């Protein structure tokens, strides 16, 4: 059985039925705000206490990849919003196209994230045994720019001079980095699954101006995930670039 948007007995009008569905999604998003809010709070307190090490950790992140991902995610929000619009005005084929574009952009985001995580593994920046903030500058590969490595070495020397426990506090930064971006990525994966389902339904022509609640509600979720990244990007990547 699939829903086609007929009026259920416990609603008075179709409009009320639709609004209730969106309202339910918003209630869920409130819990998500507080869920991610707790993580941001933890981050704020630790960053305040260990600012030097957090700055050094943040500066190891690749701003080009992070910036690229921000653009990709905002674009995916635009295509998602367009998919909702197409459903509202009854452009059935375009709904599928925009949903596929959203899924594609979401996948690109996750792919870039994999590249970033891989770099952190290569540079010994995974919290736990073997973690060493100085690993990269002491073991440069031929692909690394010698100038960049020299700057990094100098910065790390200053960091360790201010905070001798940079390796302990750096692990806190990277735990939060992987925890927060990891949970964000998990939300993206869930969103991708929802999009796959929407694409399948849209191929069957199920979304019409009268009934497109699933597109709208998944859209709300997708935009929320975008908002989380809007905060994660400056807080994780950009906090200490200005020296």
């Amino acid at each position: 059985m699939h829903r086609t948007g007929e009026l259920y007995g416990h609603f008075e009008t179709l409009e009320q039925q639709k609004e209730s569905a969106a309202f339910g999604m918003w209630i869920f998003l409130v819990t998500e705000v507080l869920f991610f809010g707790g993580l941001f709070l933890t981050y704020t307190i630790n960053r305040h206490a260990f600012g030097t090490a957090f700055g050094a950790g943040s500066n190891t992140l690749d701003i080009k990849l992070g910036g690229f991902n921000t653009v990709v995610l905002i674009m995916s929000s635009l295509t998602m919003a367009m998919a909702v619009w197409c459903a509202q005005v009854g452009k059935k084929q375009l709904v599928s196209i925009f949903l596929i574009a959203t899924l594609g952009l979401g996948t690109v985001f996750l792919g870039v994230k994999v590249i970033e995580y891989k770099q952190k593994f290569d540079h010994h920046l995974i919290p736990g045994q073997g973690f060493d903030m100085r690993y990269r500058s002491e073991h440069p590969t031929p692909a690394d720019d010698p100038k960049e490595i020299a700057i990094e070495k100098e910065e790390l020397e200053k960091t360790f001079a201010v905070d001798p426990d940079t390796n302990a506090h750096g692990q806190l930064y990277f735990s939060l980095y992987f925890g927060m971006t990891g949970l964000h990525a998990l939300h993206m994966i869930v969103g991708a699954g929802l999009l796959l389902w929407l694409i399948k339904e849209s191929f069957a022509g199920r979304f019409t101006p009268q009934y497109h609640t699933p597109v709208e509600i998944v859209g709300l979720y997708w935009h929320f995930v975008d908002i989380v990244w809007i905060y994660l990007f400056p807080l994780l990547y950009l906090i200490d670039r200005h020296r």
Partner: protein
Amino acid sequence: MSEHIVSPKIYFAIFAALMAGTGITIWAAFQNFGKFNIVIALAIATIKATLVVLYFMHARYSPKRTQLVIVCSVFWLAIMLALTLADYDTRPHEGRLASANTYASSFGGYCSG
């Protein structure tokens, strides 16, 4: 039915504003505004998030009931942030959460640098 349909023009305008915001954030991060770097970054992020909520998520055209839920979420978040930060700020811990030794020993000592 009185569903409000937001036109693609608005979506593209919001998209352009979000892109501009991203550019400004990155630019601002490399300028030295001292203490205000973080304020500027969070202000831009909040403006961007507000645009997404109002237009992409249709909050501006939603029923009052939904808008109330959104305001409540921000309010609860503010309570959590403000009270917890006030607590941390007013407890004596000499600027640190724990002594360096506590961390080093809890990690088994292998990361003490």
